[in-house]
């Protein structure tokens, strides 16, 4: 019997690690995906004033600080039971929509796109953003840079800085925007809508127009029938900034919706002694291990799950694509993980449309952007949809608003169990009777990662989609017989 140890990253670089063990027959017995780092924000934020949380928790992740900034601001509002004025909420959501455009654009073109545009079998050296630009033309590269720039411009105008915004405080914001800034933001947003439509067309031409890719998307290797969760508004439409979390079973039944303060009734986290990261699962269903199905509390929190968990989109153009998505893929819910890429582009369009809606709202320039809190601070929960999953911040304070306890359930963490399952499934398909399809293994595992857009930035330091992998294949005595690697 072989013992196959998949070690995604060397110990020294330690961005994460996978171990795969085979049974006596040479079939996969078990896999372990380990996260090697911890920083302890839940502990060291205790003692800090609650108004600093939007600034401190930005530093959990420099890739998506906007998500932490917003979840923290909403939790701090809740701690003071203060309702920010409409202009403040709209400005926060406007910043957040522009951030989504930037983030989803980066992911699709720089990280996921190469798999599709260059082809999943293309050499690693060509499967990157430069390869994409060479293939589809410099003009598209320019558009991608423009989309990122515009998004960051809006973040800076409203949030004060390009990275780690600083303007959200309990009760609203420290500043508003001028009419001139509003016009500038609206104009950039209109460009972003066209860019999103262009991106969906590109996906249509390159992926949906190619049977080989369609087969890959619809194939079994990345299919997991798990629960889906996502934030929805009062009409059960997708929303990134506000609302309740909808929970939909693998068969499409909505088993409930929870308000932010009810999250502990729905979500629990499991600790394993072999990794620093916890595994969240649906408490009402229970932890049954790394398995699919309605009896297993494993869920996903991704662009795809947000579409599955909602009834529709809140903007007209994204709704058209939403309908086409489910028509093409055979109805709701969709479980094929590679469809996350398509769902992400539909969200890109929604974010751009929402950006323009908010920028065109006359109230957005109101000087009434802050309400001074008057209640005694106690406890509060804030939830937003981070691009990589539902993000929950929960704070308790003393009567001065000094934190006494903090709990965080972070975006990507939601998907720790399903990502682990996708790794196992890829391994099972590529390892039979002790024989390993060595080339395919790295590629398939990497594609599984990329679909979820995992950002273990705080834990693994790999930017989304670039999971360093090292695979060591060992014989029965634990002796390495082959080593494969990329990005490390």
């Amino acid at each position, binding site marked *: 019997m072989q013992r196959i140890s998949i070690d995604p990253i060397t110990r020294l670089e330690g961005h994460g*690690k996978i171990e795969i063990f085979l049974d006596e027959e040479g079939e996969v017995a078990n896999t372990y995906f380990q996260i090697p780092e911890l920083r302890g924000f839940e*502990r*060291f934020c205790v003692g800090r*004033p609650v108004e600093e949380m939007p600034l401190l928790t930005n530093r959990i*992740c420099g890739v998506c*600080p906007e998500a932490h900034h917003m979840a923290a601001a909403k939790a701090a509002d809740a701690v003071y039971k203060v309702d920010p004025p409409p202009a403040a909420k709209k400005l926060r959501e406007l910043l957040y929509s522009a951030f989504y455009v930037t983030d989803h654009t980066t992911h699709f073109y720089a990280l996921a796109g190469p798999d599709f545009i260059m082809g999943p079998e293309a050499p690693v050296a060509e499967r990157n953003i430069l390869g994409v630009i060479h293939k589809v033309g410099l003009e598209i590269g320019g558009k991608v840079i423009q989309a990122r720039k515009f998004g960051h411009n809006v973040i800076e105008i409203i949030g004060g800085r390009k990275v780690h915004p600083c303007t959200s405080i309990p009760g609203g914001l420290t500043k508003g925007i001028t009419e001139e800034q509003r016009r500038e933001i609206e104009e950039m947003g209109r460009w972003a809508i066209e860019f999103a439509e262009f991106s969906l067309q590109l996906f249509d031409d390159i992926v949906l127009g190619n049977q080989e890719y369609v087969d890959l998307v619809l194939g079994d290797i990345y299919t997991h029938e798990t629960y889906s969760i996502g934030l929805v508004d009062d009409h059960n439409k997708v929303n990134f900034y506000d609302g309740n979390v909808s929970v939909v079973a693998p068969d499409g039944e909505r088993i409930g919706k929870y308000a932010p303060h009810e999250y502990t009734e729905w979500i629990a986290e499991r600790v*394993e002694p072999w990794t620093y990261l916890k595994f969240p699962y649906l408490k009402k269903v229970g932890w049954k291990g790394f398995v699919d199905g309605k009896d297993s509390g494993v869920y996903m929190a991704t662009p795809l799950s947000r579409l599955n968990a909602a009834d529709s989109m809140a903007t007209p153009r994204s709704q058209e694509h939403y309908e086409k998505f489910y028509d093409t893929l055979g109805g709701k819910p969709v479980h094929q993980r590679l469809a996350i890429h398509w769902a992400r582009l539909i969200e890109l369009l929604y974010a751009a449309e929402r950006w323009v809606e908010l920028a065109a709202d006359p109230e957005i320039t109101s000087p009434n952007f802050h309400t001074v809190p008057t209640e005694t601070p106690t406890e509060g929960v804030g939830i937003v949809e981070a691009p990589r999953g539902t993000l929950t911040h929960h704070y308790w304070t003393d009567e001065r608003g000094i934190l006494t306890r903090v709990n965080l359930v972070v975006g990507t963490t939601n998907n720790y169990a399903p990502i682990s399952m996708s790794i196992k499934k890829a391994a099972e398909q590529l390892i039979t009777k002790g024989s390993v399809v060595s080339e395919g293994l790295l590629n398939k595992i990497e594609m599984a990662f990329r679909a979820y857009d995992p950002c273990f*930035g705080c834990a693994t330091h790999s930017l989304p989609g670039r999971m360093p992998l090292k695979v060591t294949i060992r014989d029965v005595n634990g002796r390495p017989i082959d080593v494969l690697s990329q990005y490390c």
Partner: protein
Amino acid sequence: MSSTNGKPKFAMYWAASCGGCEIAVLNIHEKILDVDANFEVVFWPVAMDAKYKDVEAMPDKSILLTLFNGGIRNRENEEMAHLLRQKSQILVAFGSCACEGCIPGLANLSSKEDLFDTVYATVSTENKDNIRPQFTYQVPEGDLHIPEFYPFLRTLDQVVPVDYYMPGCPPESHQIAAVIDLVIKVIKGEAALPENGATIGANASTVCDDCPRQRNIKKITAFRRIQDVNNLDPEICLLEQGIPCNGPATRQGCGALCPQAGAQCIGCYGPADGVIDYGARLIAAFASVIDSNDPEEIDRIIDGIPDLAGQFYRFNLAGSLLGAAKPAWNGN
């Protein structure tokens, strides 16, 4: 990134960090092409297929410039710091984490056990058996390992000698671009390197020097928290309005972004030139604006700052004279 022999070698690495430094570098946009044109990028996990083994195999001092971001939180961070020091002629502590510990350095107020006991026993954690991650753990199929978590976080220069410091959380992109321009001039013989140990990509003075807010005589009778203030004047110095703004002790370099957005400086660029202890300097600055000679009233005013450790050592606890609080030291 193209790879042409003969060009000076460049590396960038992240240890315990959030990734914001990398985003700041990517935000220099077309300037990235200058890096590509003037350097051979030999190791940069975010931007290229980087092989650790290749770095290990390089002759010592063969990399001209390494930008190292992130603090030293675990064994693997420390080993990477030693390796890149050995291979680099110029090692830059890049960003607040590497320079002074940044926000993750606040973990040095607590012991390692306290951090674990908090994280693995939160309200949403189901952990009846009180499980904690183990550096080595035996599963039925064999042993699993994760890197050893150190009792406290260290800055880069507490682990290896550092040539230059580039502060900021993250360093502003225009400062990064300016530093790249300078290094290219040095390579071409058109400029000299700054003195070893210098702070680069920032100025010597304080954030106040960049702040357009109007400054009058500061006399305050109370510190106020930003959410409690209605109608904060957008033109007047925040400290003068009682907001505990860290500008007077913080190094100039960001362009006073936060105060211009109506938010107080929180100190991410670290201590200004000549400041040995950031917290001590800030305490002096705050003390000088308190408008009272009555000890009891002074106490009352200071009580308006609700978190002294965080206010004065928010970004630089790990790099300060203090370094860590007693519980963390005891864990060593």
